[in-house]
């Protein structure tokens, strides 16, 4: 009996050893992760404020790799360098090299280092992903489909960035008329924006929170109503001429603005799109006030998946600009789904903010990137958990 068991065990050991090499599930240590981003970061010093929201977001992602952890208020804690990585080379606005911290509290990252190239154009990022010269790069949502068709491995988050129209009710007497705002809002064909401009990477937005977060977005209609828009506009006398501002450096905003102009004109509404340059374009609420436009496009990314936290944030953003002085319903600290719905309804019924589409975050990955999980709202890139699958013989279970 014992001989038979021994023989069986021997066969098992021999055959298990002879099994063909499988795709490794266990992470491997080693390698350099090559990251490309469009933003240019001049300084990582906390005292130096990033001049644009894009640069601030990129700086925050790098900070997330250098600091031990992030507090609930979004600030990073501890000393820089106590996080999973340390900066070993820094060329302001161009390039950074980060090295794995062997003594990181949660364990050493799998990759040895990260090379970050800044200021890389969308075209070059896509090309480098195709040519396997980059491991990770952000892709604009409108380019996700074509990137995928060109063989780029694409990772898409839940839609967590809102593109909306915000009327400048503070400075524009035209925008103060509710019927003007409602007419524009009803003329917009959101489905066309999603289908043609975004190539179906995104979804129409009716509320200030996406369905996956609030569970009640379906209560806010997203359909177009050009007949009602035309009727409303015909009752406004004299018919005003509206100016819609968009960020001059954002091709998506430009395309959407032009689409809105087409929709509005179909309803008889007189509106023109106007690019806004540089600093005036960095913040939509400021943008509309500074540039004397009647309405502008706002891109806002959820800071948290929790609907109450996200809603509180966008209300703060809006109240800092065009909605300043506009009374809104008090928002309780522990808001119920009913409270969250009521708050959105109170804002949206005024048509000062018109949600257009929800955009996801899109990332291009090289084939060797493993254990990448797409970060949700408020989350950092999980680069300490990512490892590089460089083949069966390259550094398997190598321990630093």
């Amino acid at each position, binding site marked *: 009996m014992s001989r038979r068991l021994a023989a069986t065990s021997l*066969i*098992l050991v021999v*055959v298990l050893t002879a099994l063909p090499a*499988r795709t490794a599930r266990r992470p491997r240590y080693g390698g350099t992760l090559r990251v490309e981003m469009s933003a240019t970061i001049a300084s990582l010093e906390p005292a130096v404020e990033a001049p644009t929201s894009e640069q601030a977001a990129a700086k925050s992602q790098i900070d997330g790799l250098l600091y031990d952890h992030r507090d609930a208020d979004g600030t990073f804690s501890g000393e820089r360098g106590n996080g999973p990585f340390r900066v070993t080379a820094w060329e302001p606005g161009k390039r950074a090299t980060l090295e794995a911290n062997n003594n990181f509290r949660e364990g050493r990252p799998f990759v040895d280092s990260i090379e970050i190239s800044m200021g890389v154009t969308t075209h070059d990022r896509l090309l480098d992903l195709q040519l396997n010269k980059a491991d990770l790069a952000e892709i604009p949502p409108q380019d996700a489909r074509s990137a995928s068709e060109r063989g780029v491995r694409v990772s898409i988050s839940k839609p967590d960035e809102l593109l909306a129209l915000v009327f400048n009710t503070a400075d524009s007497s035209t925008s103060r008329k509710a019927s003007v705002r409602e007419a524009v809002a009803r003329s917009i064909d959101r489905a066309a924006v999603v289908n043609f401009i975004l190539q179906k990477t995104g979804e129409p937005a009716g509320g200030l929170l996406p*369905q996956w977060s609030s569970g*009640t977005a*379906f209560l806010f209609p997203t359909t177009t109503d050009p007949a009602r828009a035309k009727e409303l506009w015909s009752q406004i006398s004299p018919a005003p001429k509206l100016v819609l501002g968009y960020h001059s450096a954002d091709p998506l905003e430009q395309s959407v603005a032009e689409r809105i102009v087409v929709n509005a004109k179909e309803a008889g509404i007189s509106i023109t799109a106007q690019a806004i340059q540089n600093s005036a374009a960095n913040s939509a609420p400021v943008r509309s006030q500074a540039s004397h436009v009647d309405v502008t496009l706002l891109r806002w990314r959820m800071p948290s998946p929790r*609907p109450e936290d996200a809603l509180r944030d966008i209300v703060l953003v809006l109240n800092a600009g065009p909605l300043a002085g506009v009374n809104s319903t008090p928002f309780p600290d522990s808001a*119920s789904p009913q409270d969250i*719905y009521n708050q959105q309804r109170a804002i949206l019924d005024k048509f000062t903010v018109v949600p257009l589409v929800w955009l996801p975050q899109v990332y291009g990955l090289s084939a060797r990137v493993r254990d990448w999980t797409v970060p949700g709202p408020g989350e950092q890139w999980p680069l300490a958990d990512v490892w590089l699958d460089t083949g069966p013989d390259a550094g398997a279970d190598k321990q630093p």
Partner: protein
Amino acid sequence: MSQLADKIAANVSPLHPLSLEAKNMSSLSPTEASEIRGALESKLKNRSFHFVLADPAAATAQRAAKVQFAISEGAQGYVLVAEIQNSSEPDSEPQIAIVSAPKSPLRVDEPAMDSLSLDKRLIYRQAEKFVDFALLSPEAPANPSLLVILEPERLAYYRQQDASWHFSQAVPIVRWPVRDLRGRIDNDGKHVYLGDVTCTGKLAQPDTLKCIQTGSGFSSGPVFVAGDTADIGSPCKTRAAYLESGPGDWTQTDSIQGYESNDSQFNASGAPIETPGPVMSFGPGFATSTARAVVYNLKTKNYEAYIVTATCSH
């Protein structure tokens, strides 16, 4: 459900009948959604409401208030929504009543039947990470009453009470931090390995366990870990068998497949069973023809302990 029924009752007079139309926008199954609708109907009947068919003609004829009931889902759980249209004000905006509901536990898939038939049984789940577990029967061999969970910082003990596990005590473990933490509770019931730490003693008697750090840093320490395969003896006569988890990384769902020896070759036997996330650790179980698996459930974000049992089905 009572809360939603109360909100509906606050907006509609029970003198008017209700027509209730339900839609499921959540991940709940049609059966579960139907049960929830039934529960709402029942609560409304308790509040003296009576129902007419949702057919628009019938509803209009009887001046029924229309309630469109939606079972939706958000980031923090299920959201139950009632859009209430009063018969007296058919052109007005509907009243909206919303309540939240916690998510119910997931169901475990039924096993497939084949020559080597696998069955997985969920033993335990928790949000915090753990790397291995053991189900012990210190009092009666056939009745496991002690669950040991090997967590990154401790060995946690749970006792069974009223069909659920209750925390009883823990043995702290101090170790060198590593990202790819591996650990194993040895089937001899006397050794526990976690990173560079080895604990020795009687597993069922936590006070006897002594944990010693055998090295410092990544490169040292034993590599006693649960792997991707588990030897399960010979459920089908004398044919050696083992189970194996699938390929892929920790962001994907997984499967467990049985293999049996046949003339020195191991071939897949029976249908694989799916797991709701990656199998994080896998090894032979304490009982014959069983394996234990720790699975990270991608949907619920819980770590789950499963006992996988292989039986021979002809």
